[in-house]
C-alpha cells in the first residue's frame, strides 16, 4: 500500500494544548497534587527534624531531605515512588475511552488529523502535567530545605537532585503509558482505572514478595544454602525478577542518585572491593553510569507500552 500523505504531527500541538489546559484545570489533578504535597511535606518535615539533630559530617546533607525516613512516615523518595503512579493513572485512565464515551471521538477524527496526533498529544500533555507538578514539588522542597536547614545545596547536590527529577518524570511516563494503554483497550473508564490500579498494586506491593517466592521455588533451600547463604545465581535470578517491576527500577535509580556512596546495585565479590574506600561517595558521572541501565529500561518500557497503545488504537473502529 502506498504511503499516506500528510504529517502525523498535524494537530498534535492543538490536542496537546487542549489536554494540558484540561489537566491543569481539572479537579482530579488538584486532589492528586494536594495528596502528594501533604504526604511529601509530612515526610520532609520529619526528615528535617532528624537532620537538625545530626552533628556528623555529611557532604550530602541536602540529599538526605529526600531519602531520610523517620518512623512511622516513609522517606519522601518512597512516598513519590508510591504516589507518582497514582497521579499518572489518574491523568491517563480515561484518555481514549473518555472520548468515545463523550461521543466526541468521531467528530475529532473527522478533522484533518491522524489518530497518531490524538494519542501523542494526550501522552505529551500527561507527561507535561506530571513534569510541572513534580518540578513544582521539587522546587518547594528545596526552598523548604533552604529555609529550615540554613545551608545551601552544593552544585553536585543540585545536579543529583535534577537527575532525580528526570527519572521521576520518566517513571511517571511509564504509568501514564500503562493508563493510556488501558484506556485504549477498555471501553469503560471504570474498568480501565481498576485494571491500571490493580497493576500498580501488583507491581508496588505484591511483586517484591512474588519475586522472592518465585526464586525460592527455582532454588529450593538445601543444607548447603543454609550454611553459606544464597548462591550467586539465586541472587541474580531474584534481582532480575524484581527488576521486571518499574517500582524496583525507580527505587534502584533513586538509591544510586541520592545516596552517592552507593557503589553497586547488585551483588559484589570481595575481590571487587579490594582497594575501595568504603563509604566514600562516587562522583556524579559514576553514579549516573551505575543507574543508567535502570533508567534506560524505564524509558524503554514507556516506549513499548506506548507503541502497544498505538497499535491497538489504530485498529479500533471509530464507530462506538
Amino acid at each position, binding site marked *: 500500500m502506498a504511503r499516506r500523505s500528510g504529517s502525523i504531527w498535524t494537530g498534535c500541538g492543538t490536542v496537546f494544548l487542549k489536554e494540558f489546559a484540561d489537566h491543569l484545570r481539572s479537579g482530579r489533578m488538584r486532589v492528586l497534587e494536594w495528596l502528594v504535597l501533604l504526604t511529601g511535606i509530612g515526610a520532609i518535615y520529619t526528615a528535617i527534624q532528624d537532620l537538625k539533630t545530626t552533628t556528623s559530617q555529611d557532604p550530602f546533607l541536602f540529599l538526605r531531605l529526600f531519602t531520610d525516613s523517620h518512623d512511622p512516615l516513609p522517606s519522601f523518595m518512597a512516598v513519590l515512588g508510591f504516589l507518582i503512579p497514582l497521579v499518572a493513572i489518574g491523568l491517563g485512565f480515561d484518555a481514549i475511552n473518555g472520548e468515545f464515551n*463523550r*461521543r*466526541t471521538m468521531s467528530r475529532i477524527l473527522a*478533522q484533518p488529523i491522524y489518530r497518531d496526533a490524538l494519542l501523542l498529544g494526550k501522552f505529551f500533555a500527561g507527561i507535561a502535567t506530571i513534569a510541572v507538578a513534580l518540578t513544582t514539588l521539587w522546587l518547594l522542597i528545596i526552598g523548604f530545605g533552604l529555609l529550615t536547614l540554613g545551608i545551601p545545596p552544593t552544585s553536585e547536590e543540585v545536579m543529583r537532585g535534577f537527575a532525580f527529577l528526570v527519572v521521576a518524570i520518566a517513571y511517571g511516563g511509564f504509568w501514564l503509558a500503562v493508563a493510556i494503554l488501558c484506556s485504549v483497550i477498555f471501553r469503560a473508564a471504570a474498568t480501565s482505572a481498576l485494571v491500571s490500579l490493580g497493576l500498580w498494586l501488583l507491581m508496588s506491593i505484591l511483586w517484591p514478595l512474588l519475586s522472592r517466592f518465585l526464586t525460592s521455588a527455582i532454588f529450593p533451600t538445601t543444607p548447603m544454602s543454609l550454611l553459606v547463604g544464597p548462591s550467586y545465581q539465586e541472587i541474580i535470578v531474584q534481582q532480575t525478577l524484581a527488576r521486571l517491576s518499574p517500582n524496583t527500577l525507580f527505587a534502584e535509580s533513586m538509591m544510586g542518585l541520592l545516596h552517592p556512596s552507593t557503589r553497586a546495585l547488585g551483588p559484589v565479590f570481595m575481590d571487587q572491593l579490594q582497594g575501595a574506600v568504603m563509604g566514600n561517595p562516587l562522583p556524579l558521572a559514576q553514579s549516573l553510569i551505575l543507574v543508567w541501565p535502570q533508567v534506560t529500561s524505564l524509558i524503554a518500557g514507556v516506549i513499548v507500552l506506548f507503541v502497544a497503545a498505538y497499535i491497538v488504537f489504530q485498529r479500533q*473502529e*471509530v464507530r462506538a
Partner: protein
Amino acid sequence: MSEPENIIVAKGLRKLYGRHVAVDGIDLTIRRGEIFGMLGPNGAGKTTTILMLLGLTEASEGSVSVAGFDPMRQPLDVKRHVGYLPDSVGFYDNLSARVNLRYTGRLAGIPHSQLDDRIDDALLRVRLLEVAGRKVGTFSHGMRRRLGLAEVMMKRADVAILDEPTSGLDPQATFEFLEMIRGLRSDNIAVLLSSHMLDQVQAVCDRVALFKSGKIALEGTVDELSQKVLGGGYNLEIEATGDDLPKLLAQVPGVQRVTHSGGGKYSLVAAHDIRNELGKAIFASGGMLMRLDHVEPSLDTVYRHYFEDYHGAA
C-alpha cells in the same frame, strides 16, 4: 482549475467485518450543490458507507474519490474538504460552545485570524450565538445537534455528511433543522444525508438512494423512484363500500393494481386518470363512494411498496 462536477464518486465499495458483509458493492455519485439522501433501515450499511467515504474505516474493496482525493491514501485532504455530523454527536460538556468549536476549528487548520469570525457566523446561522459562552453541558439534545451543524458550517467544506441528523428531535426542532440543512444548498456544497425518516428526506433531498442489506436497491429522484416501484402509474385513493369491491375495482379498465389499506380504503395504481370510470363503476354496482383522491407519490409509499415486494419475493 475547474471544480469536478462529481464531488463524490464511489465504485464497487465493499466492507467486510470478518465474514459479515456490511456493505456489498455500492456505486455512488454525488454532485456539487445537491442534497443526496441515503435511506434504509438500520443496519443497511449507511453509516459504514459514510465512514468509508471519510476514510475513518478502511474499505475492503472498491475505490472512492472525495473532492478528487482518495480517503485511504490522502485522508487528511479528504477530511479538510468534508464536514461530518455523526449520528451520535457529543461535545466536551465542561467547555463552552465557542471553545468546543475553537478546538475542532484549530484541528481543522482554520487560520487563526478567521476562526472567531467563522465561529460567530456559523453559530448565528444555527441560532446559537446568544448561548455561545454557555457550557455545552447545559445544552438540550436539539442544541447539540445544531452545534454539530455549526461545526460543519464553520469548516466551509465542499461536502457535508450528516448521519441521521434529525433522529431524536421533536417535530418543531426537526422542522427547523431541515430548514438549516436546506440553507446549506446556497453554499453550493454537496450534502449527503442519511436517515430512515422518509418524509424528511423527501422534503429536502434532490436525489435518494435506497439501501437494503448493504446494497443500493434503488437510486434517483423521488419521482423516478416512484416510477420504478409503482410502475409510473397514477396513484389513487378510494374510500368506498360495496360488495366485492377489490374485484370490481380491478375490473375497471386501466387499473394496474389494487391494494386494500384497511377499512373501506383502497389504493389504486392506474395507467391514467380514471377517476370518472371508477366512480361510475362503484355507483353502478350499488356501492357508496366516500372519497376519491389523486395522490402525489410519496417516498413513504415507494419505500413500503418496495420492501413489501421484496418481502413478498423472499
